[in-house]
């Protein structure tokens, strides 16, 4: 038994975490739509297992370093898996699995784009896994582009002028963002002659170069993360795409660029970042929270409400930076920010899938067409509510844990103004979410007909909602994983 376990631990999980989704992509494209559908769940389960295996190994043996080609930095590319990377991998694999389950049945009914959804999704997941594991700034650029093109392709799936415009807007924004990032890479290599994160972190010194690089890379990645006021591209792309795509994009894709920003700030830029810079990011985050929530409150189409809610929730992620800028709060700020990213992923994916089912059943996207849903799709509505609890930051939910940690950091650092912002944001979130619930509670108008849905559509959303609940009932587990190799010694929130 124990020998089996040690053998499993010894497996070179990193290469499989990256390799499995890409292999699936090849199979899915080569053998066409039906095979893609059939292979999806096995492949997604396998990638989840690979992520679990890697996390187990990291928990047991500490952070893992993988020298691609056996060369090692600075000549070759290094991959690096610590608790943070593993948590992101687990999140991606789990949400990918449930969304894939949903998509199997979603695309079974309306066939546009079903053919290329599967290979594109395989690339999307593979690109994110590669990004989370890479420890080389240029390789990270390639993964960013891989991710961006896959995401844009998925947005364009639905066809039609609106989708094409959304996709093109998204593509141009993403390309501009990654070029700013690449320029930063060029400056870094030109100055320090290496591309490895660790070496750069050791060599970067405060000065014009560091500040220019920080500005360029942060700007580029903020654009890719749709941080207010650079969020213009997100709502049409996320709100207009096919439901499983919306879920993947809103829950996962924006987290990838945020994750990269987090790594850079804490592991490369740390010596050179200034408190005003951090405060500026916080101000933009606050703007996102308030402005995004307000716009969500003004929407008429349900999926657009959820999309704007993403714009708002991204704001909480960026409060991490100012909160971590003062010593007393740094740890709970970091843990809280990462936890917010993870729990938002589960909640938002669940919410998009649930809303997608409602729209599919009611046949209309407008919020005032939801009457009778509570009687017709109780499970989807329940999932929506569970996810909503997490977004509002109410217990029991992962969102509450994240908010707790962030508020704790704010109070410990004496930055009460962020407390005010977070509380206001929570109340605004409640306002626009209960607006949806209220319409769903109304009795159905006479003669209203609903389309019957396969149960899998409701169950997959429910599974994710339970995930966001579980994150609130058992936070010590994910946080323990997160502590492995955290950017500060002996950290605990």
């Amino acid at each position, binding site marked *: 038994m124990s020998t089996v376990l040690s053998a499993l631990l010894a497996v070179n999980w990193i290469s499989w975490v990256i390799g499995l989704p890409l292999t699936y992509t090849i199979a899915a494209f080569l053998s066409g739509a039906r095979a893609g559908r059939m292979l999806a769940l096995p492949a997604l389960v396998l990638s989840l297992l690979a992520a679990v295996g890697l996390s187990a190994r990291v928990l047991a043996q500490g952070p893992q370093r993988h020298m691609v080609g056996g060369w090692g930095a600075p000549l070759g590319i290094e991959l690096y898996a610590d608790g943070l990377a593993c948590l992101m991998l687990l999140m991606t694999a789990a949400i990918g699995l449930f969304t894939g389950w949903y998509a199997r049945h979603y695309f079974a009914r309306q066939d546009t784009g079903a053919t290329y959804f599967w290979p594109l999704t395989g690339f999307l997941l593979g690109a994110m896994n590669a990004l989370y594991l890479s420890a080389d700034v240029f390789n990270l650029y*390639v993964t960013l*582009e891989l991710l961006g093109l896959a995401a*844009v392709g998925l947005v364009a799936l639905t066809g039609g002028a609106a989708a*094409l415009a959304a996709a*093109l807007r998204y593509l141009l924004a993403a390309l*501009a963002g990654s070029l700013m990032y690449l320029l930063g890479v060029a*400056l870094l*290599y*030109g100055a320090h002659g290496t591309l490895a994160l660790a070496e750069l972190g050791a060599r970067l010194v405060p000065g014009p170069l560091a500040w220019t690089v920080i500005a360029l890379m942060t700007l580029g990645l903020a654009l890719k993360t749709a941080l207010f006021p650079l969020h213009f591209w997100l709502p049409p792309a996320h709100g207009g795409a096919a439901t499983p795509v919306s879920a993947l994009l809103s829950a996962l894709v924006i987290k990838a660029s945020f994750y990269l920003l987090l790594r850079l700030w804490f592991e490369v830029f740390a010596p050179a970042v200034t408190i005003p810079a951090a405060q500026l990011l916080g101000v933009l985050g606050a703007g996102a929270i308030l402005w995004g929530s307000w716009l969500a409150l003004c929407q008429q189409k349900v999926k657009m409400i959820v999309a704007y809610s993403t714009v708002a929730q991204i704001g909480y992620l960026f409060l991490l930076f100012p909160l971590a800028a003062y010593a007393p709060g740094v740890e709970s700020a970091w843990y809280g920010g990462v936890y917010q990213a993870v729990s938002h992923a589960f909640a938002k994916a669940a919410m998009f899938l649930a809303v997608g089912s409602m729209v599919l059943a009611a046949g209309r996207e407008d919020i005032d067409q939801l009457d009778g849903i509570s009687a017709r799709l109780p499970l989807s509505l329940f999932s929506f509510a569970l996810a909503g609890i997490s977004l509002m930051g109410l217990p029991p939910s992962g969102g509450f844990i994240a908010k707790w940690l962030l508020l704790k950091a704010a109070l410990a650092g004496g930055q009460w103004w962020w407390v005010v912002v977070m509380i206001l944001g929570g109340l605004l979130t409640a306002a626009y979410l209960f607006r949806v619930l209220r319409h769903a509670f109304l009795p159905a108008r006479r003669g209203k007909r609903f389309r019957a849905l396969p149960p899998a559509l409701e169950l997959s959303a429910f599974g994710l909602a339970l995930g966001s609940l579980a994150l609130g009932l058992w936070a010590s587990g994910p946080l323990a994983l997160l502590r492995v190799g955290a950017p500060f010694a002996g950290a605990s929130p």
Partner: protein
Amino acid sequence: MSIGLIYAVTGALLFSLGLYGLIVHAHLIRKILAFNIMGSGTFLVLVGLAQRGGEVDPVPQALVLTGIVVAVSATAFALILARRLYAANGRCTLPGEGEA
């Protein structure tokens, strides 16, 4: 001022120019061209800055080759999206941006 540095400075100028074009031009083809100018600028900085000492460094050259392929793929995809959009609604601009 070494050759490499001259390349790098030119690259910086091209990058800024491209960024300007990407933001202010409404016409999609112009936007895509602007993106390519930004890209070329970045590549110039990448090769130029690293070799400003005069010695040859194969790594940035390889990086630029990779970057070029990525840029080509992105450009092709962008162009075809633009063509599709034009075929769909007969406009060469994104909604909400004035005609070029």
